[in-house]
């Protein structure tokens, strides 16, 4: 063996020794993440972006919306939970109280980006002053109107209604355009659609909708009656299609897409849908108004992200949550793909410049509300909830005062359970 070979051999031994002293290289991990089906279009953009820039990867599993609660509940009991989870934000209070989620208060408070997240998300993810999650893939309700019909009716297409009365007046003028053209639309038998699009008008007019407990007054404030009376008047005047009464959400957007509806409450998701499905429809978006000019609100929906208790990679999951609040994730993962950011300061971003309707929608996230309540399903989301019974009885049967009183009593009863 020559001198050079001795040297090479010595170097190899030295390298092996050094590597054994340093220990084995840390293997990259693969995290499991559950996402509900409704967010399955948005979440992959963020996850793919994370996977492209990080050694630790995330594998997504889509869970049907109506199975998320039972799967997480049984998973927690069995000790088999995903490392990170994205779910309908409305379940946050129930999950926090049930002890399903990991407390991430200290890490979130130390993160400067967390302070910029829409207040609706932060409020909802806080239980007994501790934080258990943050915004992930938001959606928000807005008012949407058909500019072509506005023009034909002699209305200014750049002036959407800014009060409840203006909705009524504009709807009357649009209805006069023809027997199959309607001024306003809402899904009369859909509890979820109405908490999303009708309740913000009540909130904008100063109402408080749902009680946290049996001591709080539900449906409090004149805004509740004002909005129900407006809908009742529009219904009796024939400004709303008859089919609205039976619509359990299946036709939530179909009528507007057909170009025969002037005004309706909708979600931010409809902008992309309309551009794809009805490219020739000229439409505008605005905040959902209250009784007076300057009053506006929105219902913040979409998904939150959290770490289930028992997560095997909680530390990396936390890194992912902090990363998804960075400029990179919010802009390149969400805004670039026409998805709203959950950070308020990024509502007006470079990707939304070519589509100002996204900016309006993203700003609605900042002014929006989301009720912090247990039993949301009982009070609102179920097909027999006091919320939908109130709307049906008030709008279609004309029992405005009686329906509010009945819903108040039932909601108080549920909240005290």
């Amino acid at each position, binding site marked *: 063996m020559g001198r050079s070979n001795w040297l090479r051999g010595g170097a190899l031994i030295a390298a092996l020794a050094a590597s054994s002293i340093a220990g084995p290289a840390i293997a990259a991990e693969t995290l499991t993440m559950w996402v509900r089906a409704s967010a399955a279009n948005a979440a992959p953009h963020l996850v793919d972006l994370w996977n492209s820039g990080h050694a630790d990867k995330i594998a997504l599993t889509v869970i049907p919306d109506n199975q998320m609660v039972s799967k997480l509940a049984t998973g927690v009991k069995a000790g088999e939970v995903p490392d990170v989870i994205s779910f309908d934000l409305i379940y946050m209070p129930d999950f926090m109280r*049930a002890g399903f989620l990991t407390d991430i208060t200290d890490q979130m408070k130390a993160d400067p980006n967390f302070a910029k997240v829409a207040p609706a998300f932060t409020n909802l993810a806080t239980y007994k002053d501790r934080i258990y999650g943050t915004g992930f893939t938001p959606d928000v309700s807005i008012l949407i109107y058909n500019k072509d019909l506005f023009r034909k009716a002699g209305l200014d297409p750049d002036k959407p209604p800014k009060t409840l009365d203006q909705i009524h007046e504009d709807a009357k003028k649009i209805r006069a355009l023809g027997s199959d053209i309607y001024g306003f639309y809402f899904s009369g038998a859909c509890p979820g659609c109405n908490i999303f699009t009708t309740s913000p008008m009540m909130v904008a007019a100063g109402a408080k909708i749902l009680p946290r407990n049996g001591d709080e007054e539900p449906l409090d404030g004149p805004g509740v009656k004002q909005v129900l009376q407006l809908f009742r008047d529009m219904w009796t005047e024939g400004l709303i299609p008859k089919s609205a009464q039976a619509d*359990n959400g299946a036709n939530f957007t179909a009528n507007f897409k057909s170009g025969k509806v002037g005004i309706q409450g909708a979600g931010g998701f409809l902008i992309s849908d309309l551009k794809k499905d009805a490219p020739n429809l000229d439409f505008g978006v605005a905040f959902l108004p209250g009784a007076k000019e300057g009053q506006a609100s929105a219902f913040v929906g979409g998904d939150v992200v959290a770490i289930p208790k028992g997560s095997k990679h909680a530390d990396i999951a936390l890194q992912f949550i902090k990363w998804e609040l960075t400029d990179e994730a919010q802009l390149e993962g969400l805004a670039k793909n026409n998805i709203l950011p959950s950070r308020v300061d990024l509502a007006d971003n470079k990707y939304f410049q070519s589509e100002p309707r996204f900016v309006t929608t993203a700003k609605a996230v900042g002014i929006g509300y989301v009720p912090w309540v247990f039993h949301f*399903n*009982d009070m609102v989301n179920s*097909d027999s909830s006091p919320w939908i019974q109130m709307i049906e009885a008030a709008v279609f049967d004309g029992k405005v005062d009686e329906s509010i009183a009945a819903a108040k009593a039932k909601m108080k009863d549920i909240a005290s359970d």
Partner: protein
Amino acid sequence: MNPSRSGYVGLLYAAPALLFVAVFVLYPLAQLFVTSLTNSSLLGGGEFIGWRNYLRAYRDATFWQALVFTCKYTLIITPILMILGYGLALLTLSANRLGKLTRAVVFLPVVIGLGSSSFLWFWLFDEQVGLVNKLLQDVHLIAHPIVWFVDANLGLAAVIASIVWKVVGFGMILFIAALQAIDAEVNEAALIDGASYWRRILHIALPLTSRAILLTTLVSAIGSMLAFDQFYVMTAGGPESQTFTSLYWIYQNSFIYFKLGYGATLSVILMAIILSGSTLQLLLMRRGRGT
């Protein structure tokens, strides 16, 4: 082999089936009953609360309203399915090509999932794009499109139409099997005696297929008492909660309101009601045959 020894051997043969029933039927039933005595939540936790859930069910107006609606649905749809199924069986009894083709066409919807067929009919009854309104308008039965699901009775009619289309073929097949099992000589004898077609149906076919009719009625009635998918998809319990079925209300409580304990209580009550109804039906049939 002495009788007691042969009894043990018989038990040994039946043991796998008994074990299966014990694990997959009796144990879950016992568990259901135990859960019904607790305030268990889908989110975890739960304490023994005795009969409180049963007391609550007694006062639950929506549950009893749903039960009445379910009974109404069962009482309407069961005779329709039986008469139509039997009629179709008689019409397609002959083994010619048309008969076989008709049987296949009528039976085809049975293999479609109930959820899928409900969606199909939901859109067929849609007031704007549905073909049902178009057909009724074209034949001048209606002047304007009907909004079917805005009225509980119209919604129920739409659901019944969808279910008849979906399951009538199942009864038809069972009835055909029963009719084919009738000894050909009995019919031949009746023919020689000059019995008309309807007389043979009334005095030969119906009595000799009564067991099949009873079985099919029982299966159909139990299935209707447990109706869920079709109402979940087509009416969502509306308008104003008037088309909730018992099972739909149990689902609401267990999985939407997270009240597993109360959902279990309602399930036990519904099971007891169906069991009593089925037993009564069997006893009445037995007594009818005895007289």
